[in-house]
């Protein structure tokens, strides 16, 4: 009775492996990892500071990051978007130099601005579009703060081929977000007069990530 059956442990291992494969199978969840590194240079963040005496408008284009998204379960979305600080630009060269300098964004010491999603709530679906409130950690100039932003996800199934002239096949995920942050909260030259440089920074993020199929 106590004699071990040599077949059973082997069968157990095989069954375990099969179960593992099944759980990892796309049949059980369509989570995809979207890479936001964008060789086309379309991904961008627009920032606006509207002070009584001066309005400053600029853009940042050095965007990367990875987001895991499941169109059937968007509330499980995870990921991080990274903006290269040095990619921030304004049309006036002297203003750009100041903006990237030590008093303002300090691009040399803080080369990245990151937003990491922690929680997705109030999910609403409308066809390929999903809107949600994403709570995440925004890190800028060495200061990390938690904030909740309204985000619109657009899942474009099988559209990667159209974007790469058929070189790759897969899905695209477009993320759009509009939110405001306070300059002083991130130590961005808090002493600067607010009549010339607005305290509030309005940020509009428009990015597209690709999930190629092999």
């Amino acid at each position, binding site marked *: 009775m106590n004699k071990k059956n040599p077949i059973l442990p082997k069968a157990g291992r095989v069954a375990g492996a099969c179960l593992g494969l099944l759980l990892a199978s796309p049949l059980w969840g369509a989570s995809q990892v979207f890479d936001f590194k964008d060789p086309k240079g379309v991904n961008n963040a627009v920032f606006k500071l509207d002070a009584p005496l001066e309005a400053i408008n600029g853009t940042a284009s050095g965007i990367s990051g990875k987001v895991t998204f499941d169109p059937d379960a968007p509330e499980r979305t995870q990921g991080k978007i990274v903006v290269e600080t040095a990619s921030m*630009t304004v049309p006036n060269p002297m203003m750009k130099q100041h903006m990237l300098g030590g008093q303002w964004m300090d691009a040399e010491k803080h080369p990245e601005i990151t937003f990491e999603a922690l929680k997705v709530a109030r999910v609403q679906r409308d066809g390929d579009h999903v809107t949600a409130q994403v709570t995440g950690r925004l890190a800028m100039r060495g200061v990390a703060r938690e904030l909740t932003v309204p985000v619109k996800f657009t899942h474009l199934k099988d559209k990667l081929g159209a974007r790469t002239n058929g070189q790759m096949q897969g899905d695209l995920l477009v993320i759009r977000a509009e939110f405001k942050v306070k300059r002083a909260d991130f130590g961005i030259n808090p002493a600067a007069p607010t009549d010339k440089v607005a305290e509030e920074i309005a940020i509009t993020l428009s990015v597209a990530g690709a999930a190629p199929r092999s």
Partner: protein
Amino acid sequence: MRRFLRQLALGLALLSGAVWLATGAHRGWTHTEITEMRLDAITGIEYPETRKGFVAGLDLLGGGLGVAAVLAGLSFCGRTKKSCQTER
């Protein structure tokens, strides 16, 4: 000399005004880059496309008019040697 200074001042003021008007009478800082928004047809994302370009701002106009005013002022100062020396 004073005539030359006045002509130079007038020329500089006119040139500053003309450049400012010709590049769009922009009421902000001078731009050396021009950004235009484009639309990515696949994703529907509006993205900025930046190219080199020059747009004179109020700083350039003000600077030009300021230097012109200084030159014009100098021309009056140099009207007669006596008057300038007496003022000192």
